[in-house]
């Protein structure tokens, strides 16, 4: 076999961690609503509880209410940022998913490596017409999930992925 190839310049990167010229697609803004509602469902009872206890027992508990409100506001802001940070693109041979702002991640999964693709959608997400598309390869670490796709688009994506996976399928 040949010696290691000399360190020629790397080919230009199309897929980038930020920005880029590829047609990156965002996910549905409905995902923000769904996540905000979930957040509200968790926070609201706590808020009510602290307010009631604060009014009936001791006012000091109202500090907790304030803290909860602040945390809630921060999380709500974070949810907006996170959802707007999710983007994905279908290339000729891979699907690439980017996520996160503070902790960024980019996963590039070749169609040929797909083992199966799941569509998941809870009652809340269904009510908002979105689903999440989970991509599985032979390695549990390497799958990607793409939350917040409109249901029809998720279904279409799944059948596209399945078709390409079959066409480009590579042995394990």
């Amino acid at each position, binding site marked *: *076999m*040949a*010696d*290691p*190839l*000399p*360190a020629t310049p*790397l*080919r*230009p*990167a*199309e*897929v*980038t*961690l930020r920005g880029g010229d590829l047609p990156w697609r965002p996910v549905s803004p409905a995902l923000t609503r769904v996540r905000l509602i979930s957040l509200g469902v968790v926070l609201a009872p706590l808020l009510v509880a602290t307010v009631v206890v604060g009014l009936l027992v001791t006012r000091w508990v109202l500090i907790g209410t304030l803290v909860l409100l602040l945390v809630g506001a921060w999380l709500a802001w974070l949810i907006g940022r996170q959802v707007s940070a999710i983007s994905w693109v279908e290339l000729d*041979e*891979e699907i690439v998913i980017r996520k996160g702002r*503070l*902790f*960024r*991640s*980019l*996963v*590039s*999964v*070749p169609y*040929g*490596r797909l*083992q*199966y693709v*799941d569509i*998941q959608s809870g009652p809340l997400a269904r009510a908002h017409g979105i689903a999440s598309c*989970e991509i*599985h*390869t*032979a*390695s*549990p*670490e*390497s*799958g*990607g999930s793409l939350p917040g796709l409109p249901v029809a688009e998720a279904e279409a994506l799944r059948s596209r992925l399945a078709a390409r996976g*079959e066409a*480009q*399928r*590579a*042995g*394990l």
Partner: protein
Amino acid sequence: MSEPVPEPSGEWQRLHPLSPLLRGGVVLLAILGYAASQLFDTFLNSLGFGDLFVGTDGSPIDEPDGGGDPFTTAVHHPFLALAGLVVFLGLIALVNWVSWRFSRFRVGGGQVELRQGALFRQHRQVRLERVQAVELSRPLLARALGLARVVVQSAGGSDSTLTLSFLGLDRAESLREHLLELAGRTDEVATHPAEGNAVGPDDVAPPHPWAASQPVLEVPNGRLFVATILHGSTIALGALVVFGLLGAGVRSVGPLALAGIPALLPVAIGIAFNRVKELLTHGNFHLADAGSGVRVQEGLTDLRATTIPLHRIQALELVQPLWWRPVGWYRIRVNVAGSGGMGEGEGQRETTLLPVGTLADARTVLALVAPGVPAAAWDTAVLGGGGDPTWRGQTTAARWLDPLSWRRNGWTDVASAVLLRHGRLTRRAIAVPHARIQSLTVRQGWLETRLGLATVHVVPAPGPVSPVLAHLDVAHAEGFLAEVSERARTARRRSEPPRAPLAPDPPGLVDWSRHPQGTPDAERP
């Protein structure tokens, strides 16, 4: 006990009649050991306080059914204890018989099937073309009885194995060979070894891939023993003990230091357990060249033999832990599709191709299992300190995160694989064949964002090797992604299997519905 060789036609067959007993062997041994220790206790007591027992029987030793022994009751009512023992043994025999009656397996119709269980029925099947490895395992008790266990491993994680325990040794061996033959044959139809095999040999196509194997090397148990002790945990423990003893000399902290030593005892026991396990697992290590695979035989008490087909190797790691540097030893581990490898215990043993060896040993093994990667490249990968012309690596921006190793950490491309290296103290070199890359990931944490760095993961099928290249410049990481993606694309196109009539795959290799835990579904929230 040489029963007829299983026919491909696929008759249901039974396991060896002793197998349920043997499967419960550990429990039985524990019970017997407990009984024996109780008997011994009573015996000792009776020597010390003989008058306590004079009333019962006269002779304190005369307690043949000491198995009952909790404890004076049994001593006072020997017949009751005896009856209890008989019932107990009878129950064991009955359970044994029922379990044996309901355990059946068959090979045929392109798959191996195993049915088990009287109350909770279990039916597991593995398709032959998905078989990754078939191994024989011989625990101590089984070895004493001339039995062996056949473990059929398939793609799909640690839970997709099918274990036939136990069969007579002859029968087990012929079954193993039979299965490998069938699997090998279907495999050739399915993947075309010459092409699907980026790291493996390009032109090896023996008529019978599972033909007799040629010994390549063995690891002397003495070396393994020393290597097992030369481990971070034992050295840290030794240092603590030495400091403790030194501290004991100093008046002011003396008592404290001495008190600290017993406190280390649980830790010490844990470490000892771990080290002994390592020794037991990799003792008597032999590696042989089996044509299109390597055959590993190891185990101090539980002797196991596995054949790993070369094209199932997904990633290789050559590592030299810091403590092995003075003696110049190396370890080689691989990710093998289907050998689990998620858990430490089971996965580890099938994935170690060299538990400890010299550089020459390592080169031999690597040349055998990864002929696609030139020896010089491995040398630079594991020994190179930086500034090698063909390697790309970190820049000074990573200096703060990798103060020792930033010059060394990096990657290069060889013809068929991407080669990573990192670590200055513990030196590590990893090769992933382009054709085996499952996906690529770039991550960037908060600190990395500030420094303009990113971390790249090359994800192969799961196993002990996890190829990561941390803290590259962002542009470099993106370039890596582009470069390696392109190479993986080319390699995939080359290795695309001519689809045998088995497409499309049925959803499960194994009947997952019976094994809810550890299934791919378990990943889902």
